[in-house]
Structure formats: structure tokens, C-alpha cells
């Protein structure tokens, strides 16, 4: 599934994590490039927390970020897709891959609610889906939180 790139700011992408994709989160559609099939994860030594390795996509090397550990408390044991997202480093945009459990959905015309005070900073808001409260993620804050999250799999410094 390739996401259209001309969605408005009121569009969101619903992603699934956890066993059977039961835990759902949303990202602004503007942050999402596409949904890609599972590619070969390639690893090399590094010390950055919550980066699993890289995948090669269209001759680009994309870092693979484990956000499931931050959002659900455990890494995905199995993933079917990578959600390719746009990260911003100052004026530079770079693509990054997030393993997700299942297919993603486009949400149109939904209005997020503010997050509660006790919610983590990487929740930008909450989207109500037929009574289910789905956290809307702030990708940059989530990436910062994942980098700060201890990761036993990394190479010891």
C-alpha cells in the first residue's frame, strides 16, 4: 500500500503494534511516506538505543526504529510491514522505518482531543474511534523517547 502524499493535516494513519496488532496508535499522515513490505533487516555495531538496524529501500538506507518497546513495553516479535516515516533534522528530512504488526488505515476527517496531563509527551493527542481512545503520536518526541530508552541489545559502550 502506498500512501498518497497530498493528504491534508486532518488525515491520520492508524498503525498496529503488539500481539495480533491489537494496540493501535495514530500518526499525522504528513509524517508518513508509505507502508512497505518486510525487507531484510541488516545489522551492524552501534550504540544508539532502539535502533534495530537498517533496511535498503530504493537505494536508500533507512534506520529501523523499535517504537513498540516504548509504546507497548516490548519489541515486536513478528512484523509484517515497515511504516516508512519522515523524520525532520532541522531543515533536512530523512526517511525512517518503523516495524508494525499489520496493515495500516487512513483516518480522514477526525479531530484529535488534547492528551491528558498524565500521558507521555510523545502523545500529541487522543483520537476517539468508536469509543476506543487511540493515542496520536508526536513522531519527533517519540524518537527522542526511544533514543533515551535503555536498550540491552546495543553494543556496550
Amino acid at each position: 500500500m502506498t500512501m498518497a502524499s497530498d493528504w491534508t493535516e486532518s488525515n491520520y494513519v492508524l498503525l498496529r503494534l503488539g500481539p495480533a496488532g491489537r494496540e493501535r496508535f495514530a500518526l499525522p499522515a504528513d509524517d508518513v511516506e508509505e507502508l512497505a513490505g518486510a525487507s531484510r533487516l541488516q545489522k551492524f555495531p552501534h550504540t544508539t538505543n532502539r535502533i534495530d538496524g537498517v533496511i535498503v529501500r530504493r537505494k536508500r538506507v533507512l534506520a529501523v526504529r523499535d517504537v513498540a518497546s516504548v509504546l507497548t513495553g516490548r519489541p515486536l516479535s513478528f512484523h509484517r510491514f515497515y511504516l516508512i516515516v519522515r523524520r525532520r533534522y532541522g531543515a533536512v528530512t530523512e526517511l525512517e522505518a518503523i516495524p508494525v504488526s499489520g496493515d495500516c488505515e487512513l483516518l480522514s476527517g477526525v479531530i484529535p482531543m488534547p492528551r491528558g496531563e498524565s500521558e507521555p509527551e510523545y502523545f500529541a493527542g487522543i483520537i476517539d474511534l468508536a469509543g476506543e481512545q487511540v493515542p496520536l503520536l508526536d513522531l519527533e518526541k517519540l524518537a527522542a523517547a526511544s533514543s533515551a530508552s535503555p536498550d540491552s541489545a546495543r553494543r556496550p559502550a
Partner: protein
Amino acid sequence: MNGGTSRRARPLRGSPSPAGAPAAQRQEPVIVFDVAGAEFSIPAGAVHDIRSTDSLAGEAAMLEQPDFPWVRHTIERSGTTQYVVSVGTFFNLPRSRPSLVLVLRNVRCALLVDRIERMDALSSILALPRAFCGEERRWFLGLALFDDGVVPMLNPQGILTTEHLERLDARVAAGAVPV
């Protein structure tokens, strides 16, 4: 040295930036080597000499020091002490059987590796994605993209820092033990 070109490097001219940005434009010969099943590469021009570990037995001195367990030996070259870095220990890789030492040019470092996989030529290397923000930014010049995957390219100047060298020099001054 078994330096055959078993795999061809992809031409990468025009790769987009930033993660795909070419960090070098001319064709550069690279050496791809293996340590404990993990592949690394290094610009061939950075390597002065490739020696077998056996051939260094009479020249290397053991360095007993607790600070950097990946440095256990030194060699003398042109009146300068070079520190032999076990790449496997440095990167916390599974135990392996190193058989070669890559003596590097212009740095006081030599690399203990298992074997040379091949030599190749790259028109460019890919920048490390910015998501990587740890020591790997010092260790690697970038990523070499081959048909069957990416291989990190070691930065010859990024393995031992000035601080490492100062502390190792102090240990050497305290006395190395000949092997």
C-alpha cells in the same frame, strides 16, 4: 590475501541526500573483511600492509592494561608504536579466530580481523542515517551498498581517539611485556 571481486558494488551516483547522499564521488577501492561473521569495509588506501598474525609473532609486544580490552598488543613501525585493535572485541562480537592484521596508514592503529572477504570499488558510500547518534558516527565513514546488502565502512581515525592513545601511551611508558 584472497581479494577477489565476488560481488559487484552498485553504482550509486545521484543517490538522494541525506541518508543516501554520496559521501565520495570517485571510484575508491575498498577492502571488505570479516570478523565473527560480520562484514566491515575500509578504504584500501588506508591500509599500509596486511600481515598474518603468525608473521607478527616476533614483532608484537603484549600490552597488559585494563582500560581498553580490545587492545592487547602493540607493534613498532618506523619508530612509532601502533596499537593492535581486536575488531571483534571492540564491537563486542562473538569470539572468533583472527588470522590477519591490517596495518593502517597515517594512524597509530592496526586491526585484528578474521579474513579478507574481497576487494571492491565503490563510486560512493552512503551516509549513516541521522537516526544513528552514538559512537558509530565516529567509528564509520558511512555504509557501502553492495548487491546483497550494506557493509559499514570503518573510519581509520575513529577507532582510537586521542584520549585512547594518550592513555595507551601512558601504559606503554609504564612498560609493555614482550611476547
